[in-house]
């Protein structure tokens, strides 16, 4: 195992701790939007899929890469759009308007 692998592990663990501290403060009210946001963000595997689909290494790589790009894009585009649709609905009460 090389050093690079361990450097990556450091980043993984630290990001996990940061994530936990940030997410701990999300109120139960927004737990569904939280789930769909993190889901959209983890569509970042699109980055890896793009390389697989576009680097022209082999037919296998292109075919599987293209499917992966499709799946990840569904999550990124769909995830962000539906989260926004949800968040738009959350509003405070406006007593005076009525």
């Amino acid at each position, binding site marked *: 195992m090389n050093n690079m692998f361990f450097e990556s592990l450091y*980043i993984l663990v630290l990001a996990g701790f940061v994530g936990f501290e940030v997410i701990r403060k999300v109120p139960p009210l927004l737990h569904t939007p939280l789930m769909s946001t993190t889901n959209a963000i983890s569509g970042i595997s699109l980055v890896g899929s793009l390389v697989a689909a576009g680097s022209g290494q082999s037919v296998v790589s292109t075919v599987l890469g293209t499917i992966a790009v499709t799946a990840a894009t569904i999550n990124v585009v769909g995830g962000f759009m539906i989260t926004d*649709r949800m968040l738009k609905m959350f509003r405070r009460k406006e007593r005076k308007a009525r």
Partner: protein
Amino acid sequence: MNDILLSAAYLAAAILFILGLKGLNSPETARRGLLLAEIGMLLAVVGTLLHGEIIQYQWILVGLVVGSTIGALMAIFMPMTAMPQRIAISHSFGALAATLVGIVEYYQRSLTIDHGTMAALGFEVLFGSLTITGSLMAFGKLQELVKSAPITYRFQNVSNILLFVAMVGVFVFLIFSPGMSAFFYGMIAAGLVFGVLIVLPIGGADMPVVLSLLNSYAGLASAATGLVINNNVLLIAGALDGTSGFFLSMMMSRAMNRSFTNVLFGAVGAVKPGAQTQEEVRTVTRYTPEDAAFILGNAQSVMIIPGYGMAVAQAQHAVQELAELLMQRGTTVRYAIHPVAGRMPGHMNVLLAEANVPYDLLYEPEQINDDFSSTDVALVIGANDVVNPAARYKKDSPLYGMPILNADQAQTVIVLKRSLSPGFAGEDNELFYEKKTMMIFGDAKATLTGLIQLLKKTAPAESLPLS
């Protein structure tokens, strides 16, 4: 684009993701946070596309166009009530992408792969493959394509554990001899089967925990992809997704007072043959909407407790209309939301937000439980286990120890329910038999609409002469 620019784009993306999630700490900043995360994603994707490693664009374009179209159509036309299903299927897509990238990596490099990379790759495809099928099963159960009650059979746990041990064995073997491709693909196949088997015994009400766990696994698969291809932004985004899912499953388990192991292997709610026949016959008093309208019309304070039944009946708009009407008459109306009400974390909140219920009327159990004793009416709409007093004292009940909403402490309890069938946990709810409880059977939406009509006809309480 050179490497330094790409690294800078990835760094910016990682920061924006974290800031974006931070925005979700409050409904006011949530949309701005989401925008930051979107910008981060755009930076990362454009940066990657401009990088020298990519030499052909035609297939990428196909994938991007098809994916965007499907994603956008789903986002625009999916009704809010179908949100749990959408979440489930999206975990499946995310895991599919990660697994496929893993397979490509292995296919290209299997002869030169080192032990560390193999370990990461193994994690990636294991978590990935079991999340693909596990999430599809969860989708099927939520969409009722598959029986949503737990499916159990003899030796279920034993065979699942054996399969799991076998997978781990193959995984360890692969770390030491990465070249054995048959084992690699075998492990993926086993992971796919395992995903189905592990979700089979899980019933509807445990879905919030399972969805959160699958969320976590999808994230871990992404993070492992980052380890394999040495991509830090993937690592960070995956870690965020993984911890978020883990955090949510922790919250959900705590709200049910059950451990992960219990949720995954406990199979609560399985039909135990013969169990229901030996119960003593008890009767409930049926009330009519007229009775309920009278009580509601004279109440000073009403607490609404929604459950999965509200989602099934799509009654959230009728609930809002009734609450609005009561508030116009001067009644205090609040909503008490149990964390595991519904089929995913935050399910009730989203549905009520869709129906224009202001979020500052929604309360968590810790905030509201002490107020039930001074509340005139607890209006339970399609909820059952979360108000079952058996959770407080009945030690042999699967509900025992679960923090519940104290609906039974209100002056009067009105329960809208389709039938007297026990809740998911199979535990009869004694609250329904109490004297102060008014049971109204029927479709929640129809009953609520009836209540609204009746209340509109009667005058508010203060216009009556005081005696």
